[in-house]
């Protein structure tokens, strides 16, 4: 059972990291960025590409990949979001355009095989790969009857560190204050001289960088990198997490992530098989019915 608890903590970290990016954009910008899961996937793919195809050492590759994912966030802002804001489009359009972008990202990777246009990025098409063994140190420790994998420990530490840093930035720096102002009331923030466009851009940059990081850590620890990792496995769970924790709340995303990990593992141990995921979504449904703002959410947004 301890082992299963450790499993829960680990997967919870991944969910939390992913959800923080998600909730940042939703809380500040009121946009549900459905391209986030594609960036998650690209984080893993780009890191793999840099390590396996271009021969960079893992840490360097990881840093570069995270940065590139941040840039992808900017791409999302400029291609999918800003044009809609300029045209006063209804908020639901942002949903659709991010869906379109996600489709494009996944399709590009899916089609990339040796000899095609994108073979510098990825060569395995629709297949699933893992980091070349030896590229990353992967020690496994057996202590007191439980298995601790080095990579998973690293992920836990990284996630917590990042979330602390982010929390600090949001609360104590000027950028953070501007973010909170925009989140509170966009029009008032504009009146106060805050450049909303820049806030959008920087929020999306940070959020996507986090998403990419979550992705590469996922690929590393679970030995699974493919065009579909965002779509199949984390996209909806990320949604469940931010609902459970409260949309727009970063500590909520963190707690929600671990909570979901825990719910899943407990349900699996108790009931086995697929009930675990069903339970997670039932929990989501219940939370929305009983307490729509989630555990930590403060505001109830009304717009579509």
């Amino acid at each position, binding site marked *: 059972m301890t082992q299963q608890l450790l499993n829960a903590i680990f997967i919870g970290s991944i969910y939390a990291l992913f959800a923080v990016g998600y909730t940042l954009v939703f809380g500040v910008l009121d946009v549900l960025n459905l391209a986030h899961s594609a960036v998650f996937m690209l984080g893993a793919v780009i890191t793999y590409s840099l390590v396996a195809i271009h021969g960079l050492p893992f840490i360097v590759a990881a840093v570069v990949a995270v940065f590139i994912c941040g840039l992808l966030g900017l791409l999302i802002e400029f291609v999918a979001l800003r044009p809609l804001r300029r045209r006063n489009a209804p908020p639901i359009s942002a949903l659709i355009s991010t869906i379109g972008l996600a489709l494009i990202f996944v*399709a590009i990777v899916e*089609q990339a095989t040796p000899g095609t246009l994108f073979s510098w990025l990825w060569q395995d098409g629709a297949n699933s790969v893992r980091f070349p063994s030896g590229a990353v140190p992967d020690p496994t420790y057996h202590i007191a009857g439980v298995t601790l994998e080095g990579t998973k420990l690293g992920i836990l530490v990284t996630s917590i560190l990042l979330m602390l840093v982010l929390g600090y930035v949001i609360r104590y720096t000027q950028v953070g204050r501007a973010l909170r102002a925009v989140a509170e009331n966009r029009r008032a923030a504009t009146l106060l001289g805050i450049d909303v466009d820049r806030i959008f851009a920087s929020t999306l940059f940070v959020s996507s960088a986090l998403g990419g990081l979550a992705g590469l850590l996922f690929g590393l620890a679970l030995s699974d990198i493919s065009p579909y990792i965002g779509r199949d496995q984390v996209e909806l769970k990320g949604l469940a997490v931010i609902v459970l924790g409260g949309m727009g709340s970063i500590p909520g995303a963190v707690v929600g992530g671990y909570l979901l990990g825990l719910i899943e593992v407990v349900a699996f141990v108790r009931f086995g098989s697929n009930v675990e995921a069903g339970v997670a*979504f039932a929990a*989501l449904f219940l939370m*929305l019915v009983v307490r729509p703002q989630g555990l930590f959410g403060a505001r109830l947004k009304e717009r*579509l």
Partner: protein
Amino acid sequence: MDFFILLFTDPVRFYNSHELLIAQIGVNAILAISLFVTFYSGQLTLANAGFMAVGAYTTVIMSLYLPLPLPVDILTGTLLAGAVGFLVGLPVLRLRGIFLAIATIGFVEALRLGVILNVPITGEGQGLKNPGADPLGGIVPILVSLPIIAYLVWRLTRAKLGHAWAAIREDELAASSNGINVALYKMLAFVIGALLAGYAGALETHINFFVDPTEYSVTRAIQILTFAVAGGTTNVLGPIVGALFLTSLPEIIRQASAYRDVVNGVILILVIIFRPQGIVAGGGFAIHRPHWWPVNWRLGGRTASTG
């Protein structure tokens, strides 16, 4: 390209070789209309995938185990979907906007993962075979139902019900202070949407030889959402056009290249940026003058309202 050539030069052969596609367009159109109905009343729900599943599974299970005629199975499936719609609608009535959407996502996945995958009669993970399927004949009820449904929904939107829905969509508070029973009308929209989705699900099983839980996932619901929104949500024709366009798009460009999904995504983005109100809706193309574009050069179409 051969797609269009065939369509115009030999419509009969086109029909024969693309029946499954046409039937799928029909089903998707009905599904998009079911989303349209709830959207019209201001509710964004993704639950139709779940109601589809109820309709589909009920029909197939009944046709496997009970010696009743097919129309009875379909009717039961539809009604059961409506009943489930009522049950799901009750608790989520007071949720708005994105929260409602997410709650419905929760419902769909909980249904799929928690219920369908664990109840033996549904064939669990592998779904059920539908040996009574009729890929050639099954298209007929679809082609017949679609115009009828479209007409009925159109009438509804023009009737008092439709006006109440529009009022609720615009401003729920104002509507209720004007004496409109908001809860009742919202529930009506929800249940009608559920009935339509259940019906579509039942019809779909009769052109396929199977029902499978992966058909009824949130991905499917989001796909239907794109049909409705890209097509336009101001009138019934929108979802139909959206379904037609986006379902046949992968087929049309299949010939073109392996990058059809990329093209799919690009077209989706272009449609939503330049016509955010949807394909079938008033207003021109939303052209926006970038700040670096010289002022006296005209951009095509009318510019969108300033904001």
